[in-house]
């Protein structure tokens, strides 16, 4: 890989760093594991970069790699943990900040919702919340577009039922 290619990769990663952070946040419960997973995702992105087809959207490619690594990572690392534990030191700090109780409630709810989902549904939720189109979600996950819509509707119903 030449210098120009490396710089291009670095620039794209910097532009889309939020994807790695969001995936790591969705799949890991504490800061150390999150950092470890983020590093693993980046390592795998770097390894897969020579095969990246520049004609295709970078975000889709990046999401696929990040989610595949995250799900595999979690299946290996957190197998014994039955539930994602939403409250970590970071979230205690968030909760301690007296600025916006409603925002804290939303964060807590988000963590609770994530905790209740299986690994694949977490991926779906994350992609939806990150405003990815149904078509893009279908491409990333490898399911049909109509299936994406159905699953998102079910997620919505689930949230409503939870808050009822």
């Amino acid at each position, binding site marked *: 890989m030449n210098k120009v290619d490396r710089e291009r990769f670095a620039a794209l990663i910097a532009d889309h760093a939020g994807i790695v952070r969001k995936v790591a946040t969705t799949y890991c419960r504490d800061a150390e594991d999150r950092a470890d997973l983020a590093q693993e995702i980046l390592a*795998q992105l770097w390894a897969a970069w020579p095969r990246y087809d520049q004609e295709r959207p970078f975000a889709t490619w990046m999401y696929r790699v990040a989610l595949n690594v995250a799900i595999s990572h979690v299946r290996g690392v957190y197998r014994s943990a039955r539930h994602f534990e939403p409250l970590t030191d970071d979230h205690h700090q968030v909760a301690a900040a007296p600025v916006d109780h409603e925002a804290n409630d939303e964060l807590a709810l988000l963590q609770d919702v994530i905790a209740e989902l299986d690994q694949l549904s977490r991926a779906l939720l994350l992609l939806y919340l990150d405003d990815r189109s149904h078509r893009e979600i279908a491409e990333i996950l490898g399911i049909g577009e109509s299936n994406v819509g159905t699953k*998102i509707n079910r997620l919505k119903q689930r949230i409503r039922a939870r808050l009822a």
Partner: protein
Amino acid sequence: MELDDLKQALARLDKRFEDQAALDLANTRRAVRNRAADGLAPMARGQIGLIVSGAITALLGVATWHGAAFSAGGISGHIGPFVSGILFHAYGVAMIMFGVIIRLLISNVDWAAPVLSIQRRLAKVRRAYVLAGIIIGLTWCVLWMPAMVMAFFLLFGADIVAPSPGTWLWLGASGLGLMALVGLVFLWAKATGRTAITGGFDRAFAGERLNRAQDDLAAIGAFERD
């Protein structure tokens, strides 16, 4: 509150971690070199061990049947060591094949493929990996006999089958019969939906790792169907 309201929460959470989790590309490049590229690395290393063990086993098998065939008395004079050597030769080759196939499956994983296809493939690889271990392990119900025959022949030049071939035949047939019976009971329980029995087999022979791989495959199937 609706699902869409959580979009803001995700954005807020991301913003919060943005400063903490500065992505260090220099470290990433080091990480590529230093760390196992993915969680499959231990499995891949295990396959190398399996291939090496298979090669040693096959060589011992060849040494035994070759020695039996070309020593005084020939094959008919050393039928026990000859057959044991052939069995171990075949067993070693099977171990090598298992190792090579699983290693190829692991090495060709494209992490940028759609999530469901990769996760299904990984679950299948894990299942094949565990099943290979079970098959290789279970065959020792019978293989301990040719192993002993081989060991005595290679170490001391002694054919321990020759004095009482009937006893060895009976032991071999009993071992094979026991394995066949266990297999038949399992197939019957599976066909008739007796989950208590099949579950007992899972716990006794496959253990947790195979169940995990099967659970993963089932979860992927359910996600696709629902």
